[in-house]
């Protein structure tokens, strides 16, 4: 059955893109929504089967089928489904958006299942360029942030290709996993340079400081569903690529990248949290919060243990749902011209469900039990204490504490004044928020199934 998983995924992806392209002509949008959701659901089910079977193989010569890749195929297909629903309701040109989403999704799934550095390079390209166009589709006012994203993505891609080129002399196959067996690798400074370039390039998309200065502008400037895509999926794809490069190709250099990432993680957390303290625009606040969250996720890689990777994977999955849910609410409120924290006053009485959901998402982002965000942070912090990085853990805990203030500001504003003019959210917003809320609460109370999956994935990716 295992070899068929590759064919099913490839077939479903092909159909997804093909029907998306066709949609540009026939314009039957509702049908298109159903078809794309069904195909993504097929992908998700196949991936779930792949995780359950727990075996690993290579399909079609380019796709790695193992619990790690399948877990991320599952995550990306589910989150793409959610973003798809948001875009259906709010996009000006849903058909064109869907076509671009189809291309981008190939990049995402290719990276999740990559078995060579070239696939990662192509995947990053295929993912970021259509994203820039998705932003641009919506009119002149979005061009600025689209250009910003496009230029920085182009720089990141060129840096990435340079890094790949530097690896080439050492391993012409450019396969993932082969350099680990090369005994002559340590002490070769060209490879250290390649390593730093890889981290730099992938940090653009993973939003690690100082490569994340575009994030607030683009997140705020882009339409909400693209922001959800950027924060919920694109960033996670970059982390997946980071796992693959660092753990498979560059594993002998673990000492170097562990300390480099430690510095990046500390700076990212402080940058995100401190700047978020003074934000007034909720979307911008979430942009900075998602930067800080990227810092937390990095903590798991710093420890370079299987357990740390497991913690990172758990947090990636959970954060994806938290942030898509949050941006769904932000997107809906933005369409009603509610943007700043003071605009959020009285949301609790205008739409109790949205306010409750946003509160839970924020509690989860702070990392307070019983939400999934707490479990993720708990795993991450224990993973760093486990390897004796007490100072780093204390810094992370302090950052969690700083973040309380700005999240609490929004929560308090939502429940501040009684404003009885009720607002109804559209069905797609409600559905997306409900799904995300269920994930955050259910995996907060019963995290074990998700931890087991993350653990299986970490076992699959971690060498030794």
């Amino acid at each position, binding site marked *: 059955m295992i070899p068929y998983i590759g064919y099913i995924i490839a077939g479903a992806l092909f159909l997804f893109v093909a029907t998306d392209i066709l949609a540009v002509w026939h314009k039957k949008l509702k049908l298109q929504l159903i078809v794309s959701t069904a195909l993504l659901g097929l992908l998700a089910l196949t991936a779930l089967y792949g995780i359950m079977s727990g075996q690993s193989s290579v399909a079609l010569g380019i796709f790695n089928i193992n619990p790690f890749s399948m877990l991320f195929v599952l995550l990306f297909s589910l989150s793409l489904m959610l973003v798809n629903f948001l875009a259906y309701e709010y996009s000006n040109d849903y058909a064109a958006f869907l076509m671009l989403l189809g291309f981008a999704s190939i990049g995402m799934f290719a990276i999740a299942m990559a078995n060579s550095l070239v696939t990662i390079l192509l995947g990053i390209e295929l993912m970021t360029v259509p994203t820039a166009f998705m932003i641009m589709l919506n009119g002149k006012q979005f061009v600025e942030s689209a250009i910003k994203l496009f230029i920085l993505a182009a720089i990141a891609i060129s840096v990435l290709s340079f890094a790949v080129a530097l690896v080439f002399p050492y391993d012409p196959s450019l396969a993932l996993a082969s350099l680990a067996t090369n005994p002559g690798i340590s002490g070769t400074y060209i490879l250290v340079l390649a390593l730093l370039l890889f981290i730099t390039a992938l940090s653009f998309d993973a939003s690690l400081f100082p490569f994340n200065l575009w994030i607030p502008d683009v997140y705020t400037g882009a339409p909400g569903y693209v922001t959800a895509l950027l924060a919920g999926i694109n960033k996670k794809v970059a982390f997946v690529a980071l796992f693959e490069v660092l753990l498979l190709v560059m594993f002998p250099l673990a000492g170097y990248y562990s300390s480099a990432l430690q510095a990046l993680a500390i700076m990212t957390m402080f940058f995100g949290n401190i700047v978020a303290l003074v934000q007034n625009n909720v979307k911008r606040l979430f942009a900075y919060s998602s930067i800080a969250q990227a810092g937390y996720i990095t903590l798991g890689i710093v420890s370079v243990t299987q357990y740390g990777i497991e913690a990172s994977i758990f947090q990636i999955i959970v954060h994806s749902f938290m942030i898509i849910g949050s941006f769904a609410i932000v997107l809906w409120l933005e369409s009603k011209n509610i943007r700043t924290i003071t605009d959020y006053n009285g949301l609790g009485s205008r739409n109790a469900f949205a306010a409750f959901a946003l509160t839970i998402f924020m*509690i989860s982002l*702070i990392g*307070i*039990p*019983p939400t999934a965000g*707490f*479990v993720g942070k*708990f795993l991450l*912090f*224990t993973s760093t*204490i*486990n390897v004796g990085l*007490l100072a780093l*853990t*204390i810094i992370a*805990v302090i950052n*969690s*504490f700083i973040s*309380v*203030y700005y999240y*609490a*500001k929004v929560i*308090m504003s939502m*429940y*501040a004044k009684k404003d009885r003019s009720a607002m109804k959210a559209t069905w797609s917003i409600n559905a997306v928020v409900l799904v995300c809320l269920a994930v955050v609460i259910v995996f907060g109370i*019963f*995290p*074990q199934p998700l*931890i087991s999956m993350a*653990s299986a994935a970490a076992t699959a990716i971690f060498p030794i």
Partner: protein
Amino acid sequence: MIPYLGIMLASLLLGIIGVLLVNERHSRVVGSVFSGITMLLAFAVLVSGIQSGSLNFSENYIYYISQFNVSLNLQLTPISLALVLMASVVAFVTVFAGNPEHEREKTASALILLFEFAAIGLFASGNLLLFFIFWDIGVLALFFMIYLLGSANRRRAAIKFLIYELLASLLLLFAIMLVYFYTPMHSFDINYIIANSVTMSSSTQTLIFAFLFVAFLINMPVFPLHLWLPDAHTEASTQGSMLLSGVLTKFGGYGMLLAFALIPAAANFSLFVALLGGFSAFYAAFVLMTQHDIKRVIAYTTIVEMSIILVGIATLNPFGTAGATFAMLAHGFAISMLFLVAGSIGHIFADRDFRAVKGVIASSAATGYTFLIGVFATTGVPLTAAFIGDVLIFLGAIRAFSAMGVIPLLSLGIVGAYLYYVMNKSVFSTREVSKTIEYIGSSQKLGYAILLFFIFLFGLLPFLILNFFNL
């Protein structure tokens, strides 16, 4: 064996769902019913404990994170039994009597049940991660309680409360992660850690104790980390205040008892802890004398009493420990009764400044006399439960710190003197009587009665709890 603790937690969760399903008018009744069931179950635990002569309640449910061997395991020690009893009674009275204005009853009842769930889970939890999780749930429930139901300046008070409490919770989290990794078999299980923590190096123990100590100091609250409490009380609703002083501060007290039990090296610091407790008691007593808002006065008595309890905990002998436990039980009943009375006074006269409120006794005799007995019960007059607690604490303190140990008792004298002055000025001053704005209902009076009953029950029959201690 009946899994009492599990049923209690389940009934509270059902209660929350029930409260959220019914309409505003019936929510208080539904909340009271489920909270009452929980209270009866707590007393069933006490009765079966007395019958069998020992506490043998240990329950294990679903796994939370199997990697860390963390499941929902609940157990009862004598200390936690006393606090579970107290929390269930206080929460029950709070939910049905604490809201004479009938303001947002649905939200209030749901949050009270959630808080009760957290409190009982925390006192009965058998491992530290669970302790932390219930701690945070309780803090969040009370944060929303203060913020959603409080008075005009609640915004500032609520964020102050949240920041202080979450700082405490993060310190706690860090400490329990350290405990986990430095115990030989990596465990969160409280019994296991108590048995094996000697093996940790003394510097590690000191570090862990420092984190735990600050976390619990914030929560108790004790000088210099007490600043959130008076503000939170001034702005919180009556129900919020009852839970805040009655139950939430006991999280810190229970945690402090736990910290001294978990970390053997903490014994080196017991003298400093006792000194801090003693100083804090006098400090709060003197600050108390400058307050005019009845709620603020009562809030400062909480700090005094919790500081004395800290002295009792720091004695590290059976008398001090049993005394601290008993004093927490007694203080929970007494202080929530006083806040209920203060809430009623605010409701009756629409003012809580004791210089303005005159002749409570003429407008509402029940409120006036309950206030009087509440003052007795906080200052430790014989026959009330607090008397037993204070006697035990100071017996322990004399043993541990010789005659100097009794000095903190004087702070209670100051508190008593000022409270009698307040009584004299406002409650019993019948020459002029303030205008009555509203009347209190029978549910408030029933609330007084229940709390009075328990104050005298444990004052007259202290062996109900003390039997389980080896004195």
